[in-house]
């Protein structure tokens, strides 16, 4: 069964003012358990607005949302438990840190869930390990840390709630390539270890192509497609028309195909491209005529 399901979900900002803006337009998606979903779309396409619906922070202007089969907004008192089920990490989450120590900040979510002290302690330590924070950092003030470390503390704060679905809004924005790789790595590890559902909003096709099992493409408030990376990048022409870049390696292979070297498969990660090239060069595999 789908953990997340939306029916004709629409959201309008500033209804009844001159600033009226349809940010999400008639979205129908079903996300299955255990997926690692990448959400892409150009600036202002409604990604952040869409994901804020999934844990009841925004109330849809029309349409329905189901989490684990339970309809949101039927009963307002059920919103809080659902927020524990769907963890949401905002863009620049380090700006929400407030406690004296990182330990306390990570413990904020679990504490709100009403867990026992022992359980809170276990979770804080476990997520700290998962995101690569050493024990001495836990006792420091979050305001003394570097940007990348702050980001990890903030992400850990949501992970420690052990939500069934973890949603991250551009978790790598504003980090250097190494920092990005580390954050993506820890998300991947978390996904593999917990086997739960993860949604990752990103601007980078490369990151999404490399990490995700499904891709949700948003285009001007609508869902353009929700499919596996192969199928999504198969439509690279359309993606480029929308102003979205496909991974560089895909472009290289598309160009090769245009020049008459058809490898017969869609390539969207460098690793796969290399494998394919090596196979063809060593004669294991033939080019398509």
């Amino acid at each position, binding site marked *: 069964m789908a953990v997340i399901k939306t029916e004709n979900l629409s959201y309008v900002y500033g209804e009844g003012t*001159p600033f009226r803006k349809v940010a999400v337009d008639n979205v129908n998606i079903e996300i299955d358990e255990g997926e690692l979903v990448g959400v892409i779309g150009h600036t202002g396409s409604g990604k952040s607005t869409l994901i804020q619906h999934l844990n009841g922070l925004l109330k849809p202007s029309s349409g329905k949302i189901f989490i684990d089969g339970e309809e949101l907004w039927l009963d307002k008192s059920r919103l809080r438990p659902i927020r524990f089920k769907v963890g949401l990490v905002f863009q620049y989450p380090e*700006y*929400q840190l*407030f406690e004296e120590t990182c330990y306390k900040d990570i413990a904020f979510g679990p504490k709100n869930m009403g867990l026992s002290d022992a359980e809170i302690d276990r979770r804080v330590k476990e997520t700290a390990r998962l995101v690569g924070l050493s024990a001495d950092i836990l006792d420091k003030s979050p305001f003394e840390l570097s940007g990348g470390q702050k980001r990890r503390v903030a992400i850990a704060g*949501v992970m420690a709630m052990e939500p069934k679905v973890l949603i991250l809004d551009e978790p790598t924005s504003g980090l250097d390539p190494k920092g990005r790789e580390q954050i993506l790595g820890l998300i991947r590890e978390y996904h593999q270890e917990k086997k739960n559902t993860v949604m990752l909003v990103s601007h980078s096709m490369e990151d999404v192509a490399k990490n995700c099992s499904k891709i949700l493409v948003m285009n001007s408030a609508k869902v353009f497609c929700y499919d596996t990376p192969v199928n999504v990048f198969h439509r690279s022409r359309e993606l480029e028309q929308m102003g979205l870049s496909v991974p560089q390696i895909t472009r290289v292979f598309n160009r090769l195909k245009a020049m008459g070297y058809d490898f017969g498969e869609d390539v969207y990660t460098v690793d796969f491209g290399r494998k394919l090239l090596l196979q063809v060069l060593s004669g294991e595999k033939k080019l398509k005529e």
Partner: protein
Amino acid sequence: MLKDITIGQYFPGNSPVHRMDPRVKLVLTMAFIVMLFMSSSFYGLLVGIVYTFMAFAASRIPFKMMFKSLKPIIPIIIFTAILNILFVRTGDVLWQLGFIRITQQGIHTAVFMVVRIVCLIVGTSLLTYTSSPIELTDAIERLLSPLKKLKVPVHELAMMMTIALRFIPTLIEETDKIMSAQKARGADMETGSIIKRARALIPILIPLFVSSFRRAEELALAMECRCYHGGEGRTRMKQMKTSAVDYVSIVITAAFIGAVVVINILV
């Protein structure tokens, strides 16, 4: 949510009222307030009401925005009405119970005051609907500039006001964002005792303060990088110019005030 605050909400547009010089608009708004408080009879007030409606119609702002601007002060209006009804004790007695005495004069004053306040709020919010905060502070700075001779730091005050106004929406947005983020971590701000709710504000206020300080520092740096050093010798991108619209509105307003004066003398 927080976004619904309309005071100071600017509605971009190109109506005659929008095109007026903000300085003239500001002065005329003050004249309008004087007009409201000058009128001593219902006929005088009627002139004020007509003026308000005319100005609103000319601005092409939807009329329902009138009610939106009134919403936050409904308690004040009700309070004023009750106060006047109960404490004006002169005039014909309409109804009496113990020491509560409602008189005709009381009702009269209450209605009078309510109409006055409503016109006042609607009229002044038209000023903020049709001029951006930046235009307004610029206008204030220009109008107060004679005070510079008295060593009043007019430019600095106006700059502070501009910055404060500029950052109100940013702060609101930021508060919204932080609130959402903490709610996503299960923060509960809506239930519990007052003390519990006050404590629930800590996770919002601390990040808000931290980011305000960061922002102030960045802004100061950015201003210095662009060689800002106070108002001395600063020129403006948008020159304020009075034009035909302004003269027409001045004449119309003067006529209305004249009407009120005449009514005051006659009635």
